[in-house]
């Protein structure tokens, strides 16, 4: 929000940094701005009043910027004051300057109005960000100052005018001006704020939509394209199944499939891989989960081997897998209703069972049991005790 508000300049300042700030914001050389103010001074002193009012309206210099030390600009200030004094006395002598009794109350009123306006602006900009407790005192002081100045200006007017009707008229005029400013600025401020928050909401929504679109494109749309080109119902089904799991894991789990860090995620990952590779359907049941460690990782690898065997040799389209894990024990059951085999006649190329499944389980303190007989299907039981680990 700082970008939207006018700041007095800390570095490019002679008096209060008003001209430096204005020049910076408008893209004009501050010297020209100073000249403009100086020229407006002789016009009945308006330049002075306008300078003070602007100074009140602008926010102080940004906290980070270094302030130009007073000593460095003392000369400029002195010169300026001298010039002003000469100009003012010359003007007063020639009768061009407004009498002080008119100028003073007007200046008071202007500055009071400025303070009140700024007060309203900061109050409406409130509500975002913490730490609004501190400026509360400052705000109160500013409000009091605004009221005092306004009343003071009005009283001065009344005092020297003496004429009640004239005073009333100028009071009404001042009220009309204030109301005009309020009407002009209030709705615009509110609208700007509404637009800003709507834009913020819209931006968040757009970002969300973009990331979801990217995700859906990478997954669902790609799969749909593959499904359209799949020539048989089975492979289409397999693709759809895999996509369904992936989408669901993303929607409800928030887990990344590429980097499984839990037992259940790793096993699902392995399952999907086997499903795609060997064209089988795996009915995976895993009610419990645990963070993946070295032993569980070995269990997943053994289970993947058992799944691969079932997919390659069982000759059925489906495999059932149950995986359970608790603090005491983890177990995986891989079951198919396929042709089964006779373990005494295991051919050489299926030594994978001995090494990848039984050997691996044994190395991690677990065991594997294989129940099978020709024509009876196969079930591999993998048990991994977890209780007495160091």
């Amino acid at each position, binding site marked *: 929000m700082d970008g939207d508000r006018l700041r007095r300049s800390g570095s490019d300042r002679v008096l209060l940094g008003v001209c430096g700030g204005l020049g910076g914001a408008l893209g004009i050389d501050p010297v020209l701005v100073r000249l403009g103010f100086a020229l407006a001074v002789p016009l009945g002193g308006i330049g002075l009043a306008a300078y003070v009012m602007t100074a009140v309206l602008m926010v102080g210099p940004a906290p980070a910027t270094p302030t130009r030390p007073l000593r460095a600009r003392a000369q400029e200030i002195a010169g300026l004051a001298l010039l002003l004094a000469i100009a003012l006395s010359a003007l007063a002598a020639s009768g061009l300057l407004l009498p002080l009794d008119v100028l003073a109350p007007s200046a008071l009123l202007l500055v009071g109005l400025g303070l009140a306006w700024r007060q309203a602006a900061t109050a409406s900009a409130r509500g975002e960000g913490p730490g609004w407790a501190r400026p509360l005192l400052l705000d109160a002081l500013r409000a009091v100052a605004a009221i005092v100045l306004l009343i003071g200006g009005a009283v001065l007017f009344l005092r020297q005018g003496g004429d009640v009707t004239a005073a009333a008229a100028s009071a009404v005029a001042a009220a009309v001006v204030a109301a005009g400013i309020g009407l002009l600025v209030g709705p615009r401020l509110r609208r700007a704020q509404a637009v800003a928050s709507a834009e913020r909401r819209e931006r968040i929504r757009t970002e969300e939509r973009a990331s979801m679109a990217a995700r859906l494109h990478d997954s669902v749309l790609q799969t749909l394209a593959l499904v359209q080109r799949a020539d048989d119902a089975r492979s289409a089904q397999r693709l759809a199944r895999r996509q369904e*799991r992936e989408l*669901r*894991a993303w929607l*409800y*789990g928030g887990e990344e499939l590429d980097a499984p860090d839990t037992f259940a995620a790793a096993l*699902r990952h392995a399952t999907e891989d086997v499903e795609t590779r060997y064209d089988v359907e795996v*009915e*995976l*049941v*895993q*009610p*419990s989960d645990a963070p993946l460690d070295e032993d569980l990782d070995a269990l997943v690898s053994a289970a993947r081997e058992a799944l691969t065997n079932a997919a390659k040799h069982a000759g059925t389209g489906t495999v*059932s897998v*149950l995986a*359970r894990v*608790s603090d005491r024990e983890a177990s995986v*059951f891989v*079951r198919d209703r396929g042709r089964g085999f006779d373990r005494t006649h295991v051919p050489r190329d299926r030594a994978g069972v001995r090494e990848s499944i039984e050997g691996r389980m044994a190395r991690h303190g677990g065991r594997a049991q294989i129940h099978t007989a020709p024509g009876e299907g196969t*079930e591999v039981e993998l048990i991994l005790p977890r209780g007495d680990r160091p």
Partner: protein
Amino acid sequence: MNVPLRRIVIVDDHEIFRAGLKAGLGPTVQVVGEAGTVEAAVPLIKSLDPDVVLLDVHLPDGGGQAVIGPVHSERPAVKFVALSVSDAAEDVVAVIRAGARGYVTKTISPAELTRTIHRIADGDAVFSPWLAGFVLDAFNEGDAPTAGQSELDQLTPREQDVLLLLARGYTYKEIAARLQLSVKTIETHVSNVLRKLQLSNRNELTRWAAKRRMV
């Protein structure tokens, strides 16, 4: 084979899904009514008095359990099967605890669904492998049995055996063969587990369901 005709009602807020279900069911199942909302389903089921209601777990305005309660009090013979695209364990367990006799996923094959409807109509409980696995874990979780727990809060060793085999993908017949029991006995065990799941006050059941989802 003389299979009786079963009258069923489908409650699901997706019309296309209802149409798909209807098309796949065999000649032994007659769809007598359909509803898409809780509001429409309750009076419809009460007036039609079907054998079985296929009930979507995710219905707007209260979910499937909102249908079971009001119907149960008036028509206790109507049996419910929970159908779900399988995501939140909490929802499925809520519908079963409200009185559904079983749970199947929406990816079930039409032939399997037809068989399920007949089994439910015959009074069986139907557990998918998923549900069996989750129930097993829910009852096992936490501490050993304490004195305060009723019989409803514990599964017998036999029931655990049956559930474990169900979760491993065995059919009732295969379980019966493996445990050397009759199919009827297996059915009784599963019905008992369903009763415990519905009536148990075990805290773990709700807590367990709340933090899990099915995949």
